């Protein structure tokens, strides 16, 4: 049906009005000659309006005569008639051609460049890059189509933050889609120096990687570079290449640790006196309601609390508890400590601190201790000499 209509349009067709008493007979007779009719409408009992191919109309003349009907062409439709009309209006045709030509020319240019998908990268930067590569409003579409692959490669190189870039041409719009990378955290630098973790006198050194800057017998301070994270390589042509490496090695040094502990020979200890105040409170959920109290307090006091659960509840929030707070007055009385006891205490503290300072399992080479009593305070001094590895990796601040 559609193909028949399309064919009729290109061949040209007529809308014809048939008038007479025997229109049906006319159609039947015309059919025998191979004429095709479509959209047959009966407007009145004596009048039919139908469509037929323009080239079939002359065939119908004898049938008009034989059936006593009359035919009248109402409209001429289809491509041939349309072309005839258009040809007659040359100005209109010229205007249409100009319009089509203008539309065609204008649509062959890119008028808008849109960048989508960027969050971190600035759009102006991408637009500038695109402009440098030749994609800007007013450029010919054909130019872009030819060098699109090259443009994508260049743009990817210029945007290392982008993982994917695409350029699509939709009419006069160039749609540039950029997908940004999720950059990994900055890589840890492989090159690092070894520095002294403590002050000490170097007794031996073992360098595995890097360039040593100290020798046996050198006295170093905390933070001094011991092994430099660089290595020089000599090529066959005599040139020397400096290569960054991660310094490795052991720097054994004699180190001295000094600890000073002060112990008082008189201390104050609390003594509970007769004054007392007891306060009873009720705790419901997380709120405390004071109920009653007895006794009075004056001066310094200490507090103790005890509770009795009345209703445990399903959870902590539904707890009901009776709280008893006991406040007791106290006096601070001086107590004398003998120098021997104070010294013992100081020695215990000194050993604890020394264990913290020295690496575990390290035996000190020598220990020196001395003490003196001045103004009611015992001053205890402990000096320990040990041999240990003082090399530690240098901590570098991250550069943003």
């Amino acid at each position, binding site marked *: 049906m559609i193909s028949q209509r399309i064919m009729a349009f290109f061949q040209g067709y007529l809308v014809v009005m048939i008038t007479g008493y025997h*229109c*049906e007979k006319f*159609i*039947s007779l015309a059919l025998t000659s191979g004429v095709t009719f479509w959209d*047959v409408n*009966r407007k009145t*009992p004596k009048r*039919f309006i139908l469509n037929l191919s323009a080239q079939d109309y002359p065939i119908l003349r004898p049938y008009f005569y034989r059936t006593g009907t009359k035919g009248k062409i109402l409209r001429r439709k289809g491509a041939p008639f349309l072309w005839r009309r258009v040809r007659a209006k040359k100005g209109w045709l010229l205007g249409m051609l100009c319009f089509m030509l203008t539309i065609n020319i204008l649509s062959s240019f890119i008028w808008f460049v849109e960048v989508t998908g960027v969050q971190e990268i600035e759009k102006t930067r991408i637009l500038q890059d695109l402009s440098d590569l030749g994609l800007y409003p007013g450029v010919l579409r054909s130019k872009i189509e030819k060098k699109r692959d090259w443009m994508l490669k260049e743009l990817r190189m210029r945007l290392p933050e982008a993982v994917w870039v695409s350029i699509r041409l939709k009419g006069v719009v160039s749609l540039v889609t950029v997908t940004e990378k999720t950059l990994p955290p900055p890589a840890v630098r492989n090159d690092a120096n070894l520095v002294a973790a403590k002050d000490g006198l170097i007794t031996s050194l073992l360098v595995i990687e890097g360039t040593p800057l100290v020798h046996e017998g050198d006295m170093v301070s905390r933070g001094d570079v011991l092994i430099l994270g660089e290595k020089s390589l000599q090529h066959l042509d005599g040139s020397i290449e400096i290569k960054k490496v991660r310094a490795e090695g052991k720097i054994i040094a004699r180190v001295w640790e000094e600890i000073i502990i002060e112990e008082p020979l008189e201390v104050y200890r609390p003594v509970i006196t007769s004054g007392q105040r007891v306060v009873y409170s009720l705790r419901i959920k997380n709120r405390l309601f004071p109920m009653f109290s007895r006794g009075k307090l004056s001066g310094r006091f200490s507090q103790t609390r005890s509770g009795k659960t009345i209703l445990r509840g399903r959870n902590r929030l539904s707890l009901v508890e009776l709280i008893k707070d006991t406040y007791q007055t106290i006096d601070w009385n001086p107590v004398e400590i003998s120098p021997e006891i104070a010294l013992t205490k100081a020695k215990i503290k000194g050993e604890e601190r020394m264990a913290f300072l020295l690496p575990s399992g390290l035996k000190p080479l020598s220990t020196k201790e001395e003490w003196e009593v001045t103004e009611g305070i015992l001053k205890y001094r402990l000096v320990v000499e040990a041999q240990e590895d003082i090399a530690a990796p240098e901590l570098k601040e991250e550069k943003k």
Partner: protein
Amino acid sequence: MRVGKQGKGKRFKAKVADFFELPSDVILDLPRLVLTGNQRLLIENHQGIIEYAKEVIRINTPIGELRISGEDLKIILITQEQVSVEGQIDKLDWRERGEDN
């Protein structure tokens, strides 16, 4: 009334067509009707139209007259081989040629 009363020759042809599984509409020169719901009717192998109105269309066929009744009936295409009718088709019935409406 019996439409398309068959003689001995036609009965034989019908049996042959049935036996050899041949299309009987071709062998017996019968019209072929394709009805799509109650909206469209395609009639192949017709012999012209007898009457055309919005409520009724009468079409001549080799086995008699086909009367199509309905509302807003319209012939959308008519050629030597086929007629296509659109509209609300309510009733189809066959009549002998020359029988009164």
